[in-house]
């Protein structure tokens, strides 16, 4: 089958018709503001936190000073990664050209030091120590509860991206997954009383990696426009 050349006057005419019809339907619109995206995702994180506390009970270790340094550092880094990926995700919903923010990547790399350290820590002990750390009975619970909380954040991220016009779908997918994984884990993490390095370093970081991969796979088809 060959492509027939179009008559330029036909093209011009159909474009004029299109412009006339678009103009006819033109109505005032409310601008998409990045702050709305930030608020939406922050709100979803708060709802996820409240739901986690309702389901798992609040652990007051953070307030009483019982929480270990590892617990505070891990959740602090989750907050930084969540903020960095949310900011990049939100601005990425508005078409623009120029250099992209690298903050989410560097934040993720910083967070990645924790599982690496936890594994080294486990392997440097005796065999039983490593086996116990990797067979953590709370691992499944923490991972799934974090992912469940993250699902709420992911829904908010997708709603925001659909309202905007992301021009880099794969990147938006990664960012949505990172934001969902980190903020979801943070939302659930405040209810978890297990604060050893091996536990938070592994099982409060694994949902971030899982969330990022899920976001990359699931989000792009949902936000294509």
């Amino acid at each position, binding site marked *: 089958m060959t492509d*027939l050349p179009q008559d330029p006057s036909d093209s011009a005419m159909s474009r004029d018709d299109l412009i006339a019809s*678009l103009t006819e339907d*033109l109505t005032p*619109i409310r601008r998409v503001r990045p702050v709305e995206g930030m608020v939406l995702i922050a709100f979803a994180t708060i709802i996820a936190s409240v739901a986690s506390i309702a389901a798992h009970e609040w652990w007051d270790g953070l307030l009483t000073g019982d929480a270990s340094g590892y617990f505070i550092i891990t959740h602090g880094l989750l907050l930084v990664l969540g903020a960095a990926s949310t900011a990049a995700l939100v601005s990425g919903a508005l*078409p623009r050209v120029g250099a992209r923010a690298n903050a989410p990547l560097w934040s993720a790399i910083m967070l990645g030091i924790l599982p690496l350290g936890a594994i080294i820590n486990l392997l440097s002990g005796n065999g039983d120590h490593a086996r116990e750390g990797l067979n953590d009975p709370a691992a499944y619970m923490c991972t799934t509860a974090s992912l469940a909380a993250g699902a709420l954040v992911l829904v908010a991220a997708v709603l925001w991206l659909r309202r*905007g016009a992301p021009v*880099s779908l794969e990147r938006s997918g990664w960012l949505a997954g990172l934001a969902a994984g980190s903020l979801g884990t943070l939302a659930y993490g405040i209810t978890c009383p297990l604060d050893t390095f091996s536990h938070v370093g592994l099982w409060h970081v694994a949902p971030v990696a899982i969330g990022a991969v899920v976001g990359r796979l699931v989000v792009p088809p949902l936000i294509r426009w």
Partner: protein
Amino acid sequence: MVADEPTLARLMAATQNGDKAAGNVLLTEVGVWLERYFRRRVPPHSIDDLVQDVLIAFYTKRATWDPARPFLPWLAAIARYRWVDHLRKVYKHDSKELMEDDAVEDSEEEVVLARVSLDRLFGQIPDKQAEVIEMVKISGLSIREAAEKTGQSESLVKVNIHRGLKKLASLVEKAD
């Protein structure tokens, strides 16, 4: 001639507020801009389809333009997105053919935008590298001539060109 950036931005702000006359002028101007944008990127018979496709995308996503930001980069980002989508759909199995340049002329806007983009990129690499790339790769001077003009040795000119181009390539890769 297509309107300039400040005029387009004003028209866009009015269009967002529902001004139909401004919307009509803007859509027409954007159509002309897009036609020139796509002339170098797709075969002639695809241009009008793509222009209309982007006009619809432009219309449906007009709420995503922020008046505090420039208009043309926003439009270019949308045009590029639709173009890449078009390439994926239509030329999935023959991307090579697509890259052939069917353009017969450059638009003034493209030359200006290319220069602006280039200057912005040059601002991100060391002056010595930008200077020799400009001389050898753009102005067409020989390595020896560039060496004489800049006072760098010939081998240093080559090294600076190589390193500068490598840095520029990575900057372009990172850009949207």
